[in-house]
């Protein structure tokens, strides 16, 4: 992975020193609350319900074992011994003290980490495919370009005070595993007819209050130009994005207001001035950065390991874990292992300090000392030999990290919600827990098959509920917590937004509702159809009837829809 040179180190050191001084001035009364707020946010520091929250950047989700160990020790020393992995592949600490955050930043800088631009109205952490570099359908390893984008976006002077936050995702494979259609800018790799690599540029996607699928504004952008093209997009946005209303300030509102064609024309006109300038990525710079991401020293292994095959035959729980949590690798004899952070009874994405230390040693022993954070809030050991899988499984199981449910109903994406977050309208963790309890039975989960349930505690959509096959959104009605349920959302190349099925539910009813939705699916599915396929084929009606049929108020809603159909 990328190793800092003296320049990178200098920058994070100077950042830590700058924030230390800003925090000192804040406590000395020399910086007002309003003045300090954007400064602390651009260092990942929120003031939350019970305590501050610090969001630490994990650039494009890649971690070295020594970094994870440092995160473990930081969470013990400054927090309560655990952290929460987020849908932006970052790590959040829920209980740090504001006054000690500068010390945390110093400790992070020592292991080439930081909390730069993990919040605030600026360019946020760049996200990508957690299987970068090992996926079988990859056209270009997105990590070098992500690192180049990270450096370009770090303290970009023109775009440090944008109308609103700005998120960029890069996908280097045929399948989209970076949710590129739901970012402010999504870059999706393509090869043109001449065999050159470039990106489809997607702009103005996003979740939040106004969910929008991004629009393609350029079909093919040669990779050398991604920085200058992003500069052009951001300059148009910085000049013309709305600042009068924070709910209308994201780039998607601007793109919709003037239309994607006109927006594209403005970007192209701006780009014409800066194209081929000094920001153009040189082959030398690409090569320099890419050298940090060269493949680890893989052993020469057979494509199929006999011992591994035998263990699968002999041990059903292991086989089930392999089926769900192990993924094909492009190097023969290797596999990628997903360590589940979705054990029932724990908040999705939470990881204790002991687990972090444990995962770090697993990574050292079995996966070349590196790991990845997925936007589904799990951890991935990307390069495990098949012959080691049984051992890894046994150890992971003992540490509570081998829940064999990746991609199944209990692999829920969930934001911290009302238990921790000040923005939340409702709790989300107890909802996830109740669903996981309801669907505890593994055979039942396997029978249901691949399905994504995403839960957000408010419209900010950190839990990506808009793209959940089943999305659950916490809403506040007369100071009570209610849950609005949508179905039919999905990530990937055919990304779509879920549709709300009807009136909201009380927390206690949510597991029942989910079970009714599932029962419709089980009754209606054809062979090989997943939940999302059935929703696409049948639409909402049958699902609505099953859920609202016996409820007077909901029933009327469903009947009216039938009458209008």
């Amino acid at each position, binding site marked *: 992975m990328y190793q800092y040179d003296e320049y990178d180190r200098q920058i994070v050191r100077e950042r830590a020193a700058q924030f230390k001084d800003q925090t000192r001035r804040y406590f000395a009364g020399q910086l007002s609350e309003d003045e300090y707020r954007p400064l602390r946010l651009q260092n990942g520091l929120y003031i939350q319900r019970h305590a501050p929250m610090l969001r630490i950047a994990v650039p494009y989700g890649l971690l070295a074992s020594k970094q994870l160990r440092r995160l473990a020790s930081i969470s013990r020393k400054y927090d309560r011994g655990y952290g929460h992995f987020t849908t932006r592949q970052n790590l959040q600490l829920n209980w740090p003290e504001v006054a000690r955050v500068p010390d945390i930043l110093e400790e992070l800088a020592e292991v080439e980490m930081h909390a730069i631009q993990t919040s605030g109205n600026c360019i946020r952490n760049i996200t990508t495919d957690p299987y970068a570099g090992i996926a079988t359908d990859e056209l270009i390893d997105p990590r070098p370009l992500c690192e180049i984008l990270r450096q370009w976006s770090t303290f970009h002077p023109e775009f440090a005070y944008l109308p609103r936050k700005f998120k960029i995702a890069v996908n280097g494979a045929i399948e989209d595993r970076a949710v590129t259609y739901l970012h402010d800018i999504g870059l999706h790799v393509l090869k043109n007819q001449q065999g050159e690599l470039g990106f489809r540029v997607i702009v103005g996607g996003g979740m939040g209050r106004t969910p929008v699928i991004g629009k393609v504004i350029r079909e093919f952008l040669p990779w050398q130009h991604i920085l200058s093209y992003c500069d052009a997009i951001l300059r148009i946005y910085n*000049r013309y994005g709305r600042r009068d209303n924070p709910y209308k300030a994201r780039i998607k509102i601007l793109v919709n207001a003037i239309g994607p064609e006109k927006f594209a024309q403005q970007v192209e006109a701006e780009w014409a001035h800066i194209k081929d300038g000094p920001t153009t990525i040189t082959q030398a710079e690409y090569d320099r950065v890419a050298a940090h991401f060269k493949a680890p020293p893989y052993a020469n292994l057979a494509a199929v390991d006999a011992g591994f095959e035998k263990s699968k035959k002999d041990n059903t729980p292991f086989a089930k874990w392999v089926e769900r949590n192990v993924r094909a690798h492009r190097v023969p004899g290797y596999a990628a292992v997903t360590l589940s952070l979705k054990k029932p009874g724990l908040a999705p994405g939470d990881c204790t300090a002991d687990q972090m230390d444990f995962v770090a040693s697993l990574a050292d022993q079995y996966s070349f000392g590196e790991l990845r954070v997925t936007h589904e809030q799990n951890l991935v050991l990307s390069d495990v030999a098949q012959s080691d899988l049984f051992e890894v499984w046994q150890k992971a199981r003992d540490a509570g990290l081998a829940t064999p449910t990746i991609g199944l109903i209990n692999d829920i994406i969930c934001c911290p919600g009302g238990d921790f977050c000040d923005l939340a309208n409702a709790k989300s963790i107890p909802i996830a827990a109740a669903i996981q309890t309801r669907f505890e039975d593994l055979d039942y989960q396997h029978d249901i098959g691949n399905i994504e349930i995403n839960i957000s505690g408010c419209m900010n959509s950190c839990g990506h509920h808009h793209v959940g096959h089943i999305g659950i959104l916490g809403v506040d009605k007369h100071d009570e917590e209610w849950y609005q349920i949508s179905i039919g959302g999905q990530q990937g190349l055919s990304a779509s937004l879920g549709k709300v099925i009807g009136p909201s539910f009380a927390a206690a009813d949510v597991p029942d509702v989910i079970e009714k939705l599932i029962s419709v699916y089980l009754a209606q599915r054809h062979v090989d159809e997943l939940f999302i396929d059935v929703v696409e084929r049948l639409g909402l009606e049958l699902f609505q009837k099953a859920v609202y049929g016996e409820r007077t108020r909901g029933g009327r809603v469903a009947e009216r829809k039938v009458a209008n159909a």
Partner: protein
Amino acid sequence: MPEIIKDRAIVTDDWVVVRLDEGKSVDMALPQGKLIVPLSMWLSRRDELISRGEVGVWLSDTDEPELVAQDLHLFKVVAVDFPKFAVGRGYSTAALLRTRYGYQGELRAIGDVLRDQMFYLARVGFDAFSVRPDRSISDALQALNDYSVTYQGSVAQTQPLFARVNRIAADERQNGS
């Protein structure tokens, strides 16, 4: 006389920023001396303002720099107003004045100008800063040194880090290979 930061030094400043608040209109009577007038006044009283001698103009955060692009040679000072330090449209205004329209004279940040934004402001082309009067101007001056390294190109330094230095060499030193 008020002080500003100019070319990384604290200097006294005899320019007066004319603001149209409190029901004033572009037709208001102008005092003697060196004035930095709002864009609307410049557009409606151009000839008169030229005849006064040295003149400056200021752009609000929503004024388009295109509107003064042809006149830039006439100004001793161009200022960009920050109504609130966190409203960042003026950063693009400044970058465009410097790069697209080639303005090389004094470019001054006015309004809610605070030390914690100065480093960014300097990088997009501001060389003069009218720091908010309730804050220490000498503290603000120090902020121009917040960072000794920057990654991306900017107005102040058009080449990105990767084009300015040999980072491969740095990397090799680090790895000892």
